């Protein structure tokens, strides 16, 4: 908590990124009241609620879509889904990445070399094609399974951050002491290393979430989201498919694109802010 306060005071980037992300999360959490306020008891996903392709007006600030649904209503439904999948994938990646990073950094030697080679390969290889194929071949994914697919390819971001930190912690005297007193590896990791790792796990989480969100949006913009899922990328994909550009209705893109850019920016600023704060080598560089 103390770390958070000084991070907040110290890093303008973190502050800005945190505010952006917090607002997005708040809007997502307030989905039900916002929908009720905006549409009353009309189901935002029900077709033919309104005339199709209405231009933005006071009643429909973002207009309506091809099926006569209110676009703002769709955005209220889509934002929480996008955030949920991205953060869930980020969380899962962090768990995988933390395990890999801890084991690699703590064990060292051959284990480290092997795990590092695998991590590096995952980071270098273009993974979006694999994610696209996996998603296309299993269309009935739940959002948790989708998050799992994304996490399977974005954990290396977290693993790299965490490994390098464990490497430096490993040499500290109090770890040596713990080893002398015959504590088991798992005990040392849980009791001695982990408490000092919290900020780096947080950085790993932010980095992995950005990576996962990028893949998620790429996937959904291609129209490969699980069927019946309404999220911001899917909205973009649908609008693209309707040919809204030649119809002159391109404002349908505006809200989902803006919100997703804010999400990427917010997460990236949080991550960079934390990295600069906790890694003194990077401080003052920007």
């Amino acid at each position: 908590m103390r770390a958070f306060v000084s991070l907040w005071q110290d890093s303008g980037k973190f502050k800005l990124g945190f505010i952006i992300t917090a607002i997005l999360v708040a809007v997502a959490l307030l989905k039900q009241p916002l929908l009720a306020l905006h549409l009353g008891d009309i189901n935002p996903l029900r077709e033919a609620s309104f005339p199709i392709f209405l231009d933005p007006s006071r009643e429909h600030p973002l207009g309506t879509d091809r099926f006569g649904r209110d676009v703002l209503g769709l955005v209220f439904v889509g934002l929480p889904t996008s955030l949920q999948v991205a953060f869930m994938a980020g969380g899962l990646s962090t768990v995988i990445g933390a395990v890999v990073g801890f084991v690699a950094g703590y064990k060292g030697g051959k284990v480290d070399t092997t795990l590092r080679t695998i991590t590096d390969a995952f980071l270098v290889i273009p993974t979006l094609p694999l994610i696209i194929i996996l998603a296309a071949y299993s269309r009935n994914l739940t959002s948790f399974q989708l998050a799992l697919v994304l996490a399977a390819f974005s954990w290396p971001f977290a693993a790299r951050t965490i490994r390098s930190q464990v490497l430096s912690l490993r040499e500290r005297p109090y770890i040596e002491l713990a080893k002398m007193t015959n504590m088991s590896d798992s005990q040392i990791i849980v009791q001695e290393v982990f408490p000092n790792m919290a900020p780096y796990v947080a950085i790993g989480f932010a980095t992995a979430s950005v990576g996962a969100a990028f893949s998620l949006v790429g996937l959904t913009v291609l129209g490969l989201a699980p069927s019946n899922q309404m999220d911001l990328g899917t909205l973009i994909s649908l609008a693209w498919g309707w040919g809204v550009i030649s119809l002159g209705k391109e404002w349908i893109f505006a809200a989902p694109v803006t919100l997703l850019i804010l999400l990427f920016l917010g997460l990236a600023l949080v991550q960079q802010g934390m990295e600069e704060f906790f890694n003194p080598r990077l401080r003052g560089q920007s």
Partner: protein
Amino acid sequence: MASPAPTSITEVPVVDEPGTVNAPRSRKLSPVATYYLRRLGLYLITLWGSLSASFFFFRLMPGDPIGGIIAQLESKGQYSSIARSEELVLFYRREFGLDGSMLEQYIRYFERVVLHFDFGPSVLSYPTPATDLIVRALPWTLGLIGVSTILSWVIGVLLGTLVGWTRKSKISEWVTNVCLVLSHIPSFFVALFLIIWVSYKWGLLPANGAYDNRLSPGWDFEFILSVIRFGTLPVLASVLVGFAGWLIGTRALVVSILGEDFLTYANAKGLTPKRILLSYVLRNAWLPQIASLGIILGSVVNGNVLVERLFRYPGVGNLLVDSVGIKDVNTAQAVVTMFIVLVLTANLIIDLLLPLFDPRVKAAN
């Protein structure tokens, strides 16, 4: 699209673990030769690992590929009468290399892929081999990725050095902040914006395909001009995001060396600021950024898949999405394998060229 941070992951091993590099053998081999051997070995291991992973990835995919393939071929009006006879299934199993045990398939896969670069027939345009489809699409993708990566790198590194050098001025602060935002926007959003405004609203440049359909491909002036016109927006979409990432990364590198003694010394020696900037600062900025070039290539390929899709560019990324759409396993696998080989080989080439540019790699050890 992650900004090319100065932290290289394929860091030159010699620098990474001083003294531990094959200690007994390196007495006979020169450090550079050791470095080359190690890097080549790593390349082969990674290549084998990723190709194996991709093989099992496709074999363990949910759903029966043969069922999908037959359904696709049927829907195209071929073989509709003898639907799904045992014989037909067996024929396609053999044709698509799916008969025999997993181990047999695995060995045959490597035999076919490594020796002949043969992935079997495509479904997308059966019976054209999947490899042929890729060979047709590859030049477009290589052109797009090549031109946009080089442009982004050159502009980003030069401007980043300049912005880092003049970091106190209002303009460079402003440029840095704009680029910080730009570098986190996915290139396909920029592509969307360009299509709507530049192409559709203002009608300045085409955004549909790779060349004017009325022309026949050839090396004549008119066709080349058309390729450039049609390629401008896709390249621009990648460059606008890419250069911003390089700028941010380079600026951080430059700022970190500004306080170093050798710059103070160069200044004290009376060298002109221009000389210091070009031969001291820029040199320390572009060398590490060469190493980063390989690392971000994967994300460039990722972004390019979507850019190609939006511009209906006839490249490999578009081919991938098409093939995935109709469950064409062979073509999808060929595309994935090709991307992996491409990116790993590019990384190898960059790392092997590094000692030529960077004397530190040679001197280390």
